C-alpha cells in the first residue's frame, strides 16, 4: 500500500503555514495514520533533511485522545483511522481548527480543561451512584475535542463547553447526592444546556463510542427539568 501524506505544517504559532508531502509505503494492511506518522516523523529525523513532523500520541489504541486531527477534512483520531479505508493515495492531514496551533499537527487543547475548572466540575460531597451505566459511559470521554471541532456552537473562550464538558458533568449528575444537585444543575445549564443548539453534529463523531444523545436526554431531565429520579431508570 502506498500513501502520500499531504500535511499542513507550521513551525510555531507565529510562523506561516505551508503544505508538505511525505510518501509512506507499507506491507501491513492494518496500518493506521498514526503508524504512518510515526514512520515519517522517525524517517525525517534520521535523514536529517526535513524538520520532523510534530504530532501528539500516547496510547495508539484510541484510549487517550492525544492524536486527534483533521484527516481528509474530517476530524478523527490518527490511531483510529486505517490507511486501507481511505480511498485513493492522497491523505490530507491538518491540525484541529478550533484550538491554537503549537506546531504542525499539535494544538493546545488546554481550554477544554479550563472550561471544566470554570464550571466547577467536581464533587463536593461523597458520590451517590444513581446509574452505573450513565456514570461509566460519561467517564470514558477522552477529552479529545473531536466533538468540539464539529460543533457549530463551540468556540474557545465562550461559556459553552460542548459535549466534552457534558460528559464530566453527566458523570457528576449520575453520582450526585441530594445536597450537591443544585450546584451541578447550575453548572450544567451554564456550560452545556444553554449553549447547545441541538444540531447534534457531534452525534457520530465520538471515538469512545459515547451515545451522546442518550446522555444529553438523561442529563437534561435531571439538571434542567429536575427529574432526578429518571437517571437510574432504564439501566441496570
Amino acid at each position: 500500500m502506498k500513501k502520500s501524506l499531504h500535511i499542513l505544517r507550521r513551525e510555531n504559532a507565529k510562523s506561516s503555514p505551508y503544505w508538505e508531502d511525505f510518501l509512506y509505503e507499507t506491507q501491513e494492511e492494518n496500518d493506521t495514520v498514526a503508524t504512518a506518522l510515526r514512520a515519517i516523523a522517525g524517517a525525517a529525523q534520521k535523514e536529517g533533511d526535513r524538520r520532523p513532523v510534530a504530532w501528539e500520541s500516547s496510547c495508539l489504541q484510541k484510549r487517550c485522545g492525544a492524536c486527534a486531527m483533521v484527516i481528509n477534512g474530517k476530524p478523527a483520531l490518527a490511531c483510529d483511522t486505517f490507511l486501507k479505508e481511505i480511498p485513493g493515495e492522497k491523505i490530507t492531514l491538518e491540525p484541529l481548527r478550533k484550538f491554537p496551533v503549537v506546531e504542525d499537527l499539535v494544538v493546545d487543547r488546554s481550554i477544554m480543561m479550563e472550561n471544566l475548572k470554570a464550571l466547577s466540575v467536581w464533587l463536593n460531597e461523597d458520590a451517590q451512584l444513581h446509574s452505573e451505566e450513565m456514570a461509566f459511559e460519561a467517564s470514558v470521554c477522552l477529552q479529545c475535542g473531536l466533538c468540539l471541532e464539529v460543533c457549530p456552537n463551540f468556540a474557545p473562550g465562550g461559556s459553552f463547553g460542548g459535549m466534552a464538558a457534558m460528559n464530566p458533568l453527566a458523570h457528576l449528575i449520575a453520582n450526585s447526592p441530594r445536597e450537591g444537585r443544585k450546584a451541578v444543575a447550575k453548572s450544567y445549564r451554564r456550560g452545556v444546556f444553554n449553549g447547545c443548539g441541538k444540531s447534534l453534529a457531534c452525534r457520530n463523531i465520538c471515538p469512545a463510542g459515547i451515545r451522546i444523545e442518550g446522555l444529553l436526554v438523561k442529563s437534561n431531565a435531571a439538571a434542567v427539568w429536575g427529574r432526578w429520579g429518571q437517571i437510574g431508570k432504564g439501566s441496570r
Partner: protein
Amino acid sequence: MNRESIQINIIGAGLAGLSCAMTLARAGQRVRLVSFQHSERAQSNLAEGGINAVMNVMGEDDRIEYHFADTMKGGCDLADPVMVKGLTEAAPGIVREMIALGVPFHRENGKLMQRNFGGQKLKRTTYARSSTGKALMSALISAVRKYEAEGIVTRYSHHEFICLLLDGDAVSGVRIWDRFRKERLDLEGPVVMACGGMNGMFAGATTGTTANTGVAAAVLFSQGVCFGNLEFMQYHPTTVSIAGKRLLISEAARGEGGRLFCKRDGKKRYFMEEKYGERGNLMPRDVVSREIAQLSESVYLDMTGLSQQIWQERLSDLRSEVQHYLRIDPAKEPVPVAPGIHYFMGGILVDASHRTNLRRLYAAGECACAYHGANRLGGNSLLGAIYGGKTAACTVLRELSEGFGPVKNDSGKEDMPAFISREEMRIHDRMVDALLNGMGLIRTRETLVQALEELSSLEKPELSRAMSAQLLLARAILLCALERRESRGAHTRRDYPDTDETFRKTTKVMLEKGRIQITYEEITPYPTA
C-alpha cells in the same frame, strides 16, 4: 523556607501523581503537577481489568492476610513484606474512597462485584468493565480539579522533565521544559517522581504508552539515583501485535472464563489446564508467559464460551477493541496471542515511606520499585500507584513539618531538554534492539553479553545527555539481569533455571564515580501478626 512558600513538584499526572497531588492538596499543601501531556493521555487510562482489594463481597471469606500472601507469593518473595502489608491493609479503604469519588465499579443488584484475576484464588478485583483505569482517572482528575480552581494545585501540562537540581545528596528542585513554548523552567522544592514505566527503552514492544519514554528514569540514574530490581519486567501472556505497539488482552478475559490453548497434531490442547489443573489459565503472569515461551506452536485465547451477559455487562469494551484492531470477534473466534512487555517491577528504589537515596526526592507508581517483587499480580499496580502516591505525600508532609533546611542549586546551566538528536534516533533504535535481544522472556549469559557488547559499540563521547543516560540505564538493566544467576519470577535464565535462595535479595544498582555498581540488599523479614 517556610511551609507556605514551599511547593511540591510532582513529575507525572497519572494515577500516582494525581493521588499524591490530591493527598497533599487536602492537607493544604501547594503542589505543582508537571506532566508531559494532560492527565487524560497518561497510561493509567489504559488500565483495563481492575484493582485489587479485600472487599469480601463475593461470599468467599476473603481476608487481608490472603491478599498479602498472594502478593508475596506472586512476587516470588522478593517484595518487601512491610510494604506489602501496608498496601494490602490500605486497599479496601482506597476502593471505598474511589467509590466516594464517583468511580462506577460494577455492581449487580446494587452489590459491588469482584472478578477473578491471575495469581489469586479468590475474587478480589474490583472493576469497571474493561476500562477500570479510565474510570479511576476520570474521578481523580475531577477531584484534583477542585484544588486547581482553588490555586492549591498548579498544572504544568505539556512540560517535560529535564533533570534534578542537586545540592550534594539533596534535591533542591527540578528543571523542566515547556514543550509548547519551548522554554526551560527551574522549579524549587522537593520532587516526587510519578513518571510511569520506562516503555521507551523497549519502544514499539510494550502494551503501554509511547509517551513514557524512559528518558526521565535514565537521567535520574545518571544523576546518582539508586534503582532496584531492573531485571524484573513483566511479559503479559496475552498480547497481540498491532501497528506500533502490543495490544493487551486483559487478564479479565481469563478471569471471566477465557481459556488458553495451542494446536498439536490437529487437536486443541488446553496446556495450562493440563499442567496446572482447573485454575491453570489464571496462574501468575510469569508462569503463563514462560509456559507459552516453551511451546513451539502458536497460542490462542478462547473466549467463545463466555455468556452473552458477561460480554454485555463486563467486557463490552474489550470485545469492541479486539474487533476494531484485530478484525476478530472474540465471542465467536479464538484470538492468537503471545507474551509482550507490560510492566516494570524495577525502578527507582524507594523505602516504605517512598523515599529514595536522595533527600527530598520521592517516587511512586510504576516508576518506583515497590510492592511487586519479581512479578506483579494483575490489579495490584493501580492499587500500588494510588497507595504509593498517598504514602509519598504523607512522607513529604511529615518531613516538611520537621523542616527541610536551606538548599542551594549547583546544577549549572548547561542542561538542555531531554531530546535526542536526529542522528541519535538510529542509536536509539539499536539500543532498543539490543535490549529486546538481551531481555527476552528467557535469557542466557551469551545473549546478555552480546547485548552489552552492542551497547558498547553505540557509546560515543559527543552524545546528548538524554541518549547517553539511556545507554547507561540500558547497560544497568542488562547487568542486573546478567548478575542475577538464578531464575525467579519474571527473570528466567536458561543457564540458571533454578531459584537460588542466596539471591532472595533486592538488586540495588546505581552510578558511583562514573561506574555502575550492583549490590544486593537483604529483604526485611515477614512482619508477625
